[in-house]
């Protein structure tokens, strides 16, 4: 077993988490908690695969996935922003709705045949750097590289541009933003939409690049929930989100790969084909999510960093405060 190969695959898996996590960061920075990430990812995976099969063009699949997931996210936006309903309940409902829609529309898709995947490539010169080069820049899907680009861009957008400034204000103190003529409702709709599109992108990245195909709800297998947890670990910062995403991606791959070979590091592999250990191992990422959440929130309290102050609260004009 080659650790470099596992990490390489881990980066690809991590890219899925990265898209979903950064999407959720945008939504939460605007003050809207969207627990429907898992559902939107399923929609994206199904739509991407389905459109790619019928058109033969994976890029059209990606586009359709982002669009459909974005549209689905607007249901949540309407319920929580306009109707001012509870964001947790609406987000959970969105997960079930997304899973339901994708299962119905994806019926039969798993036997629909092969699809042309998104291209993979190696980056000349940098891929020659020992270890780093082979883990990050050799034979990766184009989506992985898009992920690399997105990290600094998302950070810069949030922290150093005017729309980013307004985004942060809307999530921290919507009444202040409103008083200065920023349209809080419009901004929240927009960033929930962006969150939805990125969740769709994450889904399409699974079904068209990382683990091609449609395997109903096992396609995402709870990665949307890990992304929701990673947002807190990331303290709403895209750069920290990248660290967490790749680490969790690598962990997922490791657990998958470790059950493969009969010999592990020259010894009998205790995990090989052992269902008891297998279930235990598959539980680990979710257990780690909880551990990371605990550590992350403790650190957040200590450093006075925290959730956007208005996260989870509908904005009602004329009510004082948040």
């Amino acid at each position, binding site marked *: 077993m080659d650790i470099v190969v596992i990490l390489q695959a881990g980066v690809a898996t991590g890219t899925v988490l990265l898209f979903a996590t950064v999407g959720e960061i945008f939504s939460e920075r605007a003050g809207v908690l969207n627990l429907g990430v898992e559902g939107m990812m399923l929609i994206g995976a199904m739509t991407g695969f389905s459109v790619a099969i019928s058109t033969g063009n994976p890029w059209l699949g990606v586009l359709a996935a982002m669009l459909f997931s974005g549209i689905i996210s607007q249901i949540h936006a309407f319920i929580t922003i306009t109707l001012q309903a509870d964001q947790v309940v609406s987000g959970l409902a969105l997960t079930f709705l997304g899973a339901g829609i994708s299962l119905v529309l994806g019926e039969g898709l798993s036997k629909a045949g092969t699809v042309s995947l998104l291209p993979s490539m190696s980056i000349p010169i940098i891929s020659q750097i020992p270890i780093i080069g082979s883990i990050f820049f050799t034979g990766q899907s184009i989506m992985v590289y898009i992920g690399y680009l997105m990290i600094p861009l998302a950070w810069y957008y949030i922290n150093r541009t005017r729309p980013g400034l307004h985004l942060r204000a809307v999530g*921290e103190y919507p009444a202040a933003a409103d008083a*200065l003529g920023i349209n809080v409702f419009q901004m929240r709709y927009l960033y929930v939409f962006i969150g939805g599109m990125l969740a769709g992108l994450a889904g399409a990245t699974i079904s068209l690049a990382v683990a091609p195909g449609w395997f109903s709800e096992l396609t995402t297998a709870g990665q949307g929930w890990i992304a929701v947890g990673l947002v807190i670990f990331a303290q709403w910062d895209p750069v920290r989100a990248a660290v967490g995403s790749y680490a969790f991606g690598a962990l997922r791959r490791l657990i998958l790969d470790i059950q493969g070979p009969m010999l592990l590091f020259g010894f009998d592999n205790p995990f090989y084909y052992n269902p008891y250990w297998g279930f235990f191992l598959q539980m680990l990422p979710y257990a780690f999510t909880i551990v990371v959440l605990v550590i992350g929130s403790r650190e957040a309290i200590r450093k006075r960093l925290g959730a956007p102050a208005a996260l989870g609260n509908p904005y009602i004009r004329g009510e004082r405060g948040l």
Partner: protein
Amino acid sequence: MVKSESAIQTEENTVVRMAGIVKRFPGVLANDHVDFELKRGEIHALLGENGAGKSTLMNILAGLYRPDEGEIIIRGEVENFSSPRDAINAGIGMVHQHFMLVPSQTVTENVLLGLDEPRFFMRLKEYDTKIASLSEQFGLKVDPKANIWQLSVGEQQRVEILKMLYRGAEVLIMDEPTAVLAPQEIKGLFEILRSMTEQGKSIIFISHKLNEVVEIADRISVLRRGKATANGLSSEGVTTKELARQMVGREVIFRLEKQASNPGDIVLDVRKVFAENDKGLSALSGLSLQVRAGEIVGVAGVAGNGQRELAQLISGLRNCAQGEILLHNEKISNRSTLYGIEQGMAYVPEDRTQVGSAPNLSVTDNVIMKTYRQPPISRGGLLDMSQANRFAEELKLAYDIIVPTVDTPVRLLSGGNLQRVILAREISGRPDFMVAVQPTRGLDVGAIEGVHRLLLAQRDEGAGVLLVSEELEELFALSDRIYVIYEGKIMGEVNIGLEEPSDQVVDMIGLMMTGTPMEKIGEGL
């Protein structure tokens, strides 16, 4: 914009003219044909009790509300604001009582929020220097790179003013700007306001503090129940008494008649307590104080210096890291709140609607929250609701709680009525000791008087009262002694007699409130 006939008649140096403004809210006539005129370079005070309609009038001018009738003329042009942005564009900016600042962002970011320039990239360094020079021009000292949460309340207020000046505001509406400041900071604010009017800005100063208004304003308008009772009165030769009559419509007794106190044994003994605040930072460091039976002891200080934590510690809502608190020589710190209540503790919290009461429950439910365990309300572990209702009816009469029935949820009550519900519950338990935190915040003059009377009656019946307040006036009116708190430590202790404290005493308390310990303030006081 259309020039109207009345606009042409407007004098050259009139910046704002509001004529015949009417604003109705469901069931309330908030502004009833109010006229208001602001001249260039003046400080115009707008006086009135809570609910008199001054905030409504100014919110109309600031574009937050639309008037039902009447017109607004800015520099001779009739304006029709549909949002605060329109008002700002016309040069009118409002500094709200609750600051509209994003705590996690820097001063510069807050100033630039909502503007069109810079369009995309923020170029913060460049704008930091721009804002620094603007703040220098008006004497508004503040670091543009600091995050809002790191700033004192006074500094945050300066950021709010900067925000408006940066938007080219010619008219600044200041909504009760001194309510959150220490005496020295108030002086600083007045200097800033004067420097602004010298540079041609005009200021509307909303307040209900008469002394300040007489000191700072050039002209004064008074509102009572939605109507203007005085319009552009010159502040020269006006007495606070006259203004108070215009404001309330009757004579107000400024200083309650207070008997000399007769302190007995120590009831509450706070011994060198240390505690953290919600953020895990040190809030109290080695604070000690005592309250005797039959006296009111004030705690003066600028908000956020540990008052909240001190009150929570005493009432049992927070644990102390070191030190102890004794009530009748019985340790009550780090024990349950119930234990403190059983020892005779009463607590009037700062937050009336979240801590002091359960908003959706009825008056009855709220007043029995301490006595429901004892007969006659508790009968064999069950609540006797007819007894509870009778108890509530008694309190309603005794404490003059104005409410249709005792089944009304308390969230529908006005601030003054709600405070009476809380006081009724606390006092009816016949406590030996009471902590009251900001008991009159947000109440109008009449209601304040009522609360003050109840606290004094407690004292005269032999209870010890610890009064935590940010209003020095209130502390002087009620306290027998005042401790000054700063960053979780007691800076000093001052005895207050029956008569008005001298300027020297006020200055000394002001210095202690801003961090000078009593020993370091020169002798001779």
